[in-house]
């Protein structure tokens, strides 16, 4: 058995101002992405996380640096808070060679294995078996880290969810299944896609402990995911967390939003994670408007720098088209593909 790596979580993870600052970083980055999409700088599918920032923020603060993360196509915030530089994320969205996936992946496929970030996956449910496998590798190699797997509630209808939950529970794999329940899968409401809308009941059917948190409340997410992740780390067994949240924007940039009322969206916006948390901190005397403005301005500075970086970054030469289809071994084996 390898010795456990010391936890290297950054100092004061979960500290209120850092939670707020990180939510602001995601928000400002994504607002800019929407603008750049309109300008044609970012293309393909772009799925914004606006409204859901408390989930990734609370959860990422609760994870240790060596923990692994598997995410979906709505992963910009998760990547950023895993430590992927905003520059590299923005360059990826532009399709530039300096992007975190060298421009090959785009918005839906942000990767940074050096930070244990195993990507944006655009196949709904596609990440769950991967997470089980990563955790299996850790278990077999005597590592005690947690693999956190993020997915939307829509993925629960996929076979991959059920197969992965069962495997993880059956084999006692250290996976933290984090379901971001924003009530819709594209235009399909949870109540129209699940016979059992109590998602934690599903975990129970696999003999798995479950946790539920208000996904609009970053502190609640941080505390709940911290507890859940610690349990997974200590027991070596999986757990399921449901984060109840809501997306404020369209599913992607192509969605005319025919399936939900404006009033419903407005109602949820009153619970927006950034302003409700900052109001709470102000009431507690932990934040002043000046500090808020300074955090926001810092986020904006980071975004502007990232856009400048992406603009200036080089395009990959076309001559490299066939790069990275195979690893160097294929070349070593005679080189013919």
């Amino acid at each position, binding site marked *: 058995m390898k010795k456990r790596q010391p936890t290297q979580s950054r100092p004061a993870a979960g500290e209120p101002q850092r939670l707020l600052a990180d939510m602001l970083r995601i928000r400002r980055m994504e607002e800019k992405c929407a603008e750049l999409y309109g300008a044609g700088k970012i293309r393909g599918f772009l799925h914004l996380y606006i409204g859901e920032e408390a989930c990734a923020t609370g959860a990422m603060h609760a994870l240790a640096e060596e923990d692994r993360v598997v995410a979906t196509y709505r992963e910009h915030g998760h990547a950023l808070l895993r430590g992927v530089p905003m520059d590299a994320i923005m360059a990826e969205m532009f*399709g530039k060679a300096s992007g975190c996936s060298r421009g090959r992946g*785009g918005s839906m496929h942000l990767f940074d294995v050096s930070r244990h970030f195993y990507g944006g996956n655009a196949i709904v449910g596609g990440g769950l078996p991967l997470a089980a496998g990563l955790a299996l590798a850790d278990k077999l190699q005597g590592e005690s880290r947690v693999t956190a797997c993020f997915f939307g509630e829509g993925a629960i209808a996929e076979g991959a969810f059920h197969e992965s939950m069962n495997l993880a529970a059956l084999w006692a794999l250290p996976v933290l299944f984090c379901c971001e329940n924003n009530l819709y899968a594209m*235009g399909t409401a949870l109540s*129209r896609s699940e016979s059992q809308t109590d998602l934690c009941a599903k975990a129970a059917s696999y003999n798995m402990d479950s946790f539920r948190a208000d996904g609009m409340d970053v502190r609640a997410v941080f505390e709940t995911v911290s507890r859940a992740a610690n349990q997974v780390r200590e027991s070596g067994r999986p757990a399921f967390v449901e984060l109840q949240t809501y997306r404020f924007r369209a599913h992607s940039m192509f969605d005319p939003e025919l399936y939900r009322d404006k009033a419903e969206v407005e109602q949820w916006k009153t619970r927006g994670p950034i302003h409700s948390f900052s109001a709470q901190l102000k009431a507690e005397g932990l934040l002043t408007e000046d500090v808020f403005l300074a955090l926001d301005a810092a986020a904006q500075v980071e975004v502007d720098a990232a856009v400048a970086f992406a603009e200036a970054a080089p395009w990959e030469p076309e001559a490299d088209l066939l790069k990275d289809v195979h690893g160097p071994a294929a070349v070593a084996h005679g080189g013919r593909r």
Partner: protein
Amino acid sequence: MKVSYREALREALREALAQDPRVFLMGEDVGRYGGTYAVSKGLLDEFGPDRIRDTPLSELGFVGAGVGAALGGMRPIVEVMTINFSLLALDQIVNSAALLRHMSGGQCAVPLVIRMVTGAGRQLAAQHSHSLENWYAHIPGIRVLAPATVADARGMLAPALADPDPVIIFEHAQLYNLEDALPVERVWRACDISRAAVRRTGTQASLITYGGCLPKAMQAADELAATGIDVEVIDLRVLRPLDLDTIAASVRRTHRVVVVDEGWKTGSLAGEIVARIAEDCLYDLDAPPRRVCSAEVPIPYARHMEAAALPQVAQIVAAVKEMLNV
């Protein structure tokens, strides 16, 4: 009056639903969302949620349910959002839909239509952009169609529904906004889902293609014509079973062939066509056949890299010119 490929597909669906109570459409977001590519937009209001049936994200489940419903006497049309997602349903398509008639000694029939989106060109990256039509064209027991014109978008559904066996219809993402005048009704109603079509006659080479590459082949033919080179364009339309007669007849006229296929060259439909030509009319050829296919790489996100990976007009033109030594 011009109609779009999308509108033509929708009109065909509307007609099928209106004419046969056994027909229903199901798939992810076909109803309330209005269809991912807006093909089924408005049909929910017209036909109600039983017949425009939104499904959960359960490709294996709902495609399999389509197989069962067809077996049980209905005429389901199942929409799969994107060909990459159809891989989650592959088991039900390949191990059930295609096999039930044969395994049951002819007792079972699966009159199912599966529609799915295929192809690249919108910077959607590797998990939304592939062309795997050939995988399905490999399987005995299913018919595989690739409408590439507005007339075929309008005409193919009715004969597909009348087919006693499963039919897969591939709609290329780049064709939805294609606009064209529909030919007179008698013509598109006579849609034959067993034959390829000669889209342009010519004498010096045959461009054989299908789906999203047809407009590229037609444009290449135009550009070649401007330089005095006269090529024929064959639209396969039906990827299984292949219409070998139309292919061979064209080769015997032109003696040169370039196959254009958005699939990867290795193991491609283009490879199958070249093999058939070699078997049936090798001695009619004046030059080795050529293939213009996608580069052997998952489709990249960046615009210029995506374009570099896909068959382009310039490559088709160059292939023909090289073949003619001009």
